[in-house]
């Protein structure tokens, strides 16, 4: 992300952004000079503090709620992968598989840090590994013992993440935070695409990088009944009132129509899924 272009974006939707950050334009220009020199590693923190400065206590409650909701999901994903890499080092095969999970874990950590920074004092209580039950009460009892089960849960998490972010987009409409959320959202989609390929290479023959129609037209294309809620309505072919199957006389099949759009999940649907993996006392 280019912080200068982000600020440009904010200015387009919030013409007073510079005044909010600092009443004096000169000070803002100074920040730009620092911003150009700042190391990439420090960028998320700097960005977070900038947003805090800009909106501070006036950040709309609804926006903070969405960011905290996202933060919860990022904690879930981060701890899921991190535990596998740190505590069960033989679970994920060395080489490309371990490299991919490490890449994904690092992104989830970056998302946690970014969201925490953006929320500042409004950030939710930190979630640690012990707050989660990644077996979902025994449904995935071998999640940290069996590589394929691990990949199944990982795929479900990433597909959930993709759907959760887009469901909250209207709350962030026109807000610079939306751009950041979209940038996280598409990274989750890239993760999902790769995990589906990993799962396909480990027994789920034919599972595509994109969510397809399930057998017989059902919404869940993974064949894992326990994750049905993750794929609710993914067999939809109607978008903004437009039927995509055979649209404008094209040869777009029902399958292609379902694949070409990822559906969103409502907050309640995502909460229900997340709660399966949170221990009592930490549920949403």
């Amino acid at each position, binding site marked *: *992300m*280019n912080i200068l*272009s982000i600020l*440009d*974006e904010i200015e387009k939707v919030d013409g007073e952004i510079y005044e909010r950050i600092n009443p004096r334009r000169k000070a803002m220009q100074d920040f730009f000079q620092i911003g150009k020199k700042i190391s*990439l590693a*420090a*960028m*998320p923190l700097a960005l977070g503090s900038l947003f805090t400065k800009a909106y501070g206590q006036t950040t709309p409650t609804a926006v903070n709620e969405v960011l905290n909701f996202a933060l919860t999901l990022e904690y879930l994903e981060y701890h899921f992968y991190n535990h596998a890499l740190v505590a069960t080092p033989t679970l994920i095969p060395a080489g*490309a598989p371990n*490299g*991919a999970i490490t*890449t*994904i874990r*690092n*992104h989830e950590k*970056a*998302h946690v*840090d*970014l969201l925490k920074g953006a929320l500042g004092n409004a950030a939710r209580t930190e979630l640690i590994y012990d707050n989660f039950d990644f077996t979902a009460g025994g449904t995935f009892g071998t999640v940290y013992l069996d590589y394929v089960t691990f990949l199944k849960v990982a795929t479900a998490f990433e597909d959930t993440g*993709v759907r959760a*972010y*887009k469901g909250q*987009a209207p709350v962030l*409409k026109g*807000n*610079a935070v*939306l*751009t950041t959320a*979209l*940038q*996280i*959202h*598409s*990274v989750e*989609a*890239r*993760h999902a*695409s*790769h995990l589906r390929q990993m799962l396909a290479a480990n027994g789920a023959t034919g599972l*595509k*990088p*994109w969510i397809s129609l399930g057998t017989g037209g059902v919404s869940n294309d993974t064949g894992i009944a326990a994750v049905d809620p993750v794929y609710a309505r993914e067999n939809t072919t109607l*978008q*903004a*009132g*437009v039927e*995509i199957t055979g*649209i*404008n*006389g*094209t*040869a*777009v099949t029902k399958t*292609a129509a379902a*694949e*070409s*759009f*990822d559906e*969103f999940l409502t907050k309640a649907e995502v909460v229900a899924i997340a709660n399966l993996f949170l221990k009592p006392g930490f549920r949403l």
Partner: protein
Amino acid sequence: MENLKENHKTSPKETDILDARLQRRAFLQYTGAGAAVVALVAAGCKKDRSPSMSFGTTLDFKDDFGVLNYAYALEQLEAAFYIKVASNPPASFTAAQKNYFQDVQFHEIAHREFFKKVLGTAAIGSLEVDFSSINFTDGASVLAAAKTFEDLGVAAYNGAGVRLRTDAYLVAAGQIVSVEARHAAWVRDQISNGSFADLNSLTSLGANAAGGLDAALTPDKVLAAASVYIKTKINVINL
């Protein structure tokens, strides 16, 4: 020209259209179509969506229709590319790669037609593409171009989302961009397994690896990057 609108069923006939396009090109050269001429003609036939008259087009970002037309333009480009690949894939492609390029082709056609339908009479005309920089018989060249299109598509949607004011369009755009990101990840893995989300390689498109953030670019930057593939002059106003 490659008037894809009139080839609803993708078939080998698509490639025949290229001959017509060459005639168009010759005509444009004959008229010495400079930017001024193109702009004048464009102004004169803005409402006329007859393909033979679409010498130039204008994206007016004053409202959601401008953003949707911007997406429509990019989806036209992507669809045209995948139709060409799917109809005659490089010999080096595996069966799985051929199948998935077919899939992606129909996803992009679905996106293109979705925007066309939503826009109705406000839709821009058909763009004339220029894929002369791509070697369609070479698997590596095709994959490299696909990567460019998909990563740029992700950057475009991520950068333009904040401009949308209508919930339904914002949600639709969000539902499309993640599919583009899935494409991008898959194509990248075909080139180099594990590069599905190599954000360091996407910094020129606005990604921030340290923040775990994907590409995001404003429309002017996206169109500048895409211009090598588009012959039609695109004017941008009210950005």
